[in-house]
């Protein structure tokens, strides 16, 4: 197991990358760093990989639920621009 100090240093570097990406307007980098940081916390601090199968299923189930919520929930809003409802006025903020 990697020592938590290394995980902490890695997280601080990733935080610096996030801030720089936002200041330099590199949008995808700010997007990409956050999931990596979450994976580092889950593996190094929460020790997900060392959990029993049941507890890993609980953790993964949470991710599956959230994927369903965000994907199905935003499908309408994401497609609404391409397929406007008859009564919808495009471009209204």
């Amino acid at each position, binding site marked *: 197991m990697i020592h938590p100090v290394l995980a902490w240093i890695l997280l601080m570097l990733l*935080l610096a990358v996030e801030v720089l990406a*936002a*200041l330099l307007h590199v949008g995808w980098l700010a997007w990409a760093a956050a999931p990596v940081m*979450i994976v580092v916390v889950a593996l190094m*601090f*929460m020790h997900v990989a060392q959990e029993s199968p049941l507890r890993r299923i609980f953790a993964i189930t949470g991710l599956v639920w959230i994927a369903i919520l965000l994907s199905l*929930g935003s499908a309408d809003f994401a497609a609404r621009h391409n397929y406007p409802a008859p009564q919808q006025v495009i471009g209204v903020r």
Partner: protein
Amino acid sequence: MAEPRGFQYASAAHETDTARAGMWLFLASEMLFFGAIVYVWMVLRITHPQGVVLGTSHTNLILGSINTALLLTSSFTLTLGVMRARAGQGAAAARCCLLTAGLGVGFLALKGLEWGLDLHEGLWPGPGFAPWGDDVGGARLFMCFYWVATALHGLHMVIGVGLLAWAARLAWRGPMAGRHVTAVEVVGLYWSFVDTVWLVMYPLIYLVARP
């Protein structure tokens, strides 16, 4: 020597298994709870893109980033506490828990300072809302998201600090075995989860739509 455990469990290991599984199940429900807030941000980003940019431009990147560093460090110190607890070092584990709680209180204090500055700047989405222009409606909605998200996360932090104090007390009094180790471990799971929630909220509030 019998390890301290609840009467309904066959062994201390049985209690640890149950407690950790219960915490993971609770965290899975918490993912949905905070997922709904992330969903609100996604919908705002699609329906009011310029309003989200206007709202984000008023958030305090410096305080937000310092707070992120504090929270990541607190997760690290609590991981050290869990390692100490597993090694049977009660006093060291209690000190790590208290240090973590201190960092959490630091986070909350900075958050309070930031909220004060936000109110001073007129970022409460009510009468006297300061941002102006064509996109002010979207900015108002973004600020609703901001206050709800940070308040709910702050509430979780307050609960976490209380749990840390409880785990520190158990670790301090000992014996550092059985359910007392489990307490530190389970609080560690909760605390790191609240940390990951902030790792999601931080880019949404401060970074992604920064103009």
